[in-house]
């Protein structure tokens, strides 16, 4: 079982934060197939949030094929995200480290690095959509 938390200042909508936390737990192997997610009542009582927020997050996860609802029982994990992508994390991190070192040598400070990363990230994301 996992416990949700919310960052109200992040600008990410609460329902999406819940979705991301489940995906994150799946990626890290904290949640595995067959595990139960907190019931809506539990999540609501813990976070003091609107029940529809939790329902919306669970519907989204269901739509992605990650969980399934068993009426009257709860919501259960039906898939795992730890497969192929986890193996790629190591090499990707290494490359990123090299890139960061290069950026520092070129005189970029933390803020410039973050800004460069975020604009490039957003730009490619937009190109992918278009």
């Amino acid at each position: 079982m996992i416990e949700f938390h919310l960052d109200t200042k992040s600008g990410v909508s609460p329902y999406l934060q819940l979705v991301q936390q489940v995906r994150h737990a799946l990626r890290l192997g904290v949640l595995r197939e067959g595990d139960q997610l907190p019931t809506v009542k539990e999540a609501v009582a813990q976070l003091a949030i609107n029940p529809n927020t939790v329902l919306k997050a669970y519907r989204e996860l269901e739509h992605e094929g990650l969980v399934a609802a068993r009426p009257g029982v709860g919501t259960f994990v039906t898939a795992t995200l730890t497969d192929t992508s986890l193996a790629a994390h190591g090499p990707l991190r290494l490359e990123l480290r090299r890139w960061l070192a290069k950026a520092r040598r070129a005189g970029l400070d933390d803020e410039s690095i973050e800004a460069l990363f975020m604009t490039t990230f957003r730009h490619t994301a937009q190109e992918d959509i278009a």
Partner: protein
Amino acid sequence: MKTVLQAQGLGKRYGRRWALRDCTIDIPAGHVVGLVGPNGAGKTTLLKLASGQLEPTRGGINVLGGRPAEGPAQLAKVGFVAQDTPVYAGLSVADHLRLGARLNPGWDAALARERIRLLGLDPNHRAGKLSGGQRAQLALTLGLAKRPELLILDEPVASLDPLARREFLQGLMEAVVEHELSVVLSSHLVADLERVCDFLIVLVDSRVEVAGEVDKLLATHHRLTGPRRDPDRLPADQDVVSARHTDRQSTLVIRTDAPIHDPAWTVSRLSLEDLVLAYMEKHTADNRRIALEVR
């Protein structure tokens, strides 16, 4: 879809002052509705009209298909927790539950006892000796054990410390899941309600400025930043909520259902708090304009 609260041109006047004007809203059932506005905006007036403690001066209001307080059946359907969650200081916790059972035909004694137990309250304790948070929880317990279809709460968390505030809203949201009740609660701080409400009404100076589902409101309001521009020259489907200008830059909050294609604008999301503030700002700006025109 079932309607929980419907108002048509609703108004309430005290002497020469209108506490609420031209209020037309339609709230579907199954929502937690946040009623937000500055102090003195008319929030309490609207809530008291909905619970039948006040009679409208103008227009009509319909709550769960009936006229507020028109009979015992209607009274049983609506629960009301007044401002600052009042309790009887001289009576014990158990006395409050007995009183609740005596006054409400649909009283859920098991629910009341269980909540008091979970809260760790001593039934023999006098209500006057409880902490602010405990008093609020006792008032909430009375409101819930009545088993209403709609629970109205007027500024329930305003006087509570952050922990008590969180605990109060936790209890309220748990009850929403368990009993499928609709809730209308007011606050002068949107931050208090941001997490719990999925329908928002912004009330400023006795008028409803905007009302709707929170998701929809957030999806249709945007902040535009770009080179200075006259707001009147925007596309017709973009309603300007607020506008600020420097000599070179314009920052607008607009409402639109259509996508924004103009590449000159940087479009960003609004938080619920920014959205509410934009409407309050709009209201002040409109008032200033009226004052100038009168002169």
